[in-house]
């Protein structure tokens, strides 16, 4: 129950933060990437704010053996670069620019710009399912090379 409460508070805080930040406006996100046109640097300030708080949070995390409400930190362990990281990030960048949306703002817009947000989210879920499908096919082709997923 404590875990769920913490998660709900964090989720609402994320949603309100996105609303305040201006990042729920696809035109503004697009404006950040449009460096040769009418450049809008707002996204950089959003990243600066978020990263500064999280830098402090990681500092605290390193001194703690476990989180407040669970027994262990569930953190990504992968260190090395691989083609999937580069290829996936490249594809993500293309979609981000085309629609002006990444996953957080798209979901947050479901309650405010329901129709266009729902179209994007459904397409995004389809993309996620297709990726999972290709992963499953690759695994069945090459059963010894089962890659684990990390966030």
């Amino acid at each position: 129950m404590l875990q769920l409460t913490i998660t709900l508070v964090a989720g609402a805080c994320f949603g309100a933060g996105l609303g305040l930040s201006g990042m729920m406006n696809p035109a503004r996100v697009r404006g950040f990437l449009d460096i040769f046109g009418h450049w809008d640097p707002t996204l950089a300030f959003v990243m600066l704010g978020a990263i500064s708080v999280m830098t402090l949070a990681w500092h605290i995390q390193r001194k703690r053996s476990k989180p407040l409400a669970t027994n262990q930190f569930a953190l990504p362990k992968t260190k090395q670069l691989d083609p999937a990281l580069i290829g996936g990030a490249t594809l993500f960048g293309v979609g981000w620019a085309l629609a002006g949306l990444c996953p957080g703002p798209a979901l947050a817009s479901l309650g405010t710009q329901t129709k266009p947000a729902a179209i994007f989210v459904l397409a995004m879920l389809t993309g996620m399912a297709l990726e999972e499908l290709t992963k499953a096919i690759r695994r069945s082709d090459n059963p010894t090379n089962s890659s684990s997923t990390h966030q």
Partner: protein
Amino acid sequence: MIASFSNAQPLAGFMGGLLIGLSAAIMLLGIGQIAGISGILARSALLTQSRMPWTLATGFICALVVGAALFDQQFGPIEANFPPESAWLITGGLCVGFGTRLSNGCTSGHGVCGISRLSFRSIVATITFMLSGIITIATVNIFTGGW
């Protein structure tokens, strides 16, 4: 480069960023999870088996939608200019979904949580998707005029 910052909202952006960072900090120090939206959504949609319990993933997504809607109601309306044609949304959504799962993270997981952790993978991923986005916009503007 013809830069015009007249439409920027640096203060609102920074304050919103602080809230997003606070949310990610609560997730990390409270329940030990990375606040990466693409991963949490995939978990909630039963597309992956991550270490995050399904109820928490789904609760986070629902609270995110409610939090944004409440903000819109109290302090809005939130300014939002979406692409006029669904083709942009559908193509974009497919690429974002496939790409974020393949690279295991998006703007929140790699951009916010990963960069602040000084994760080399996340720094490379963020530079990659930003460059890719910049090139895409420039290309789209040349060939179609964009939206």
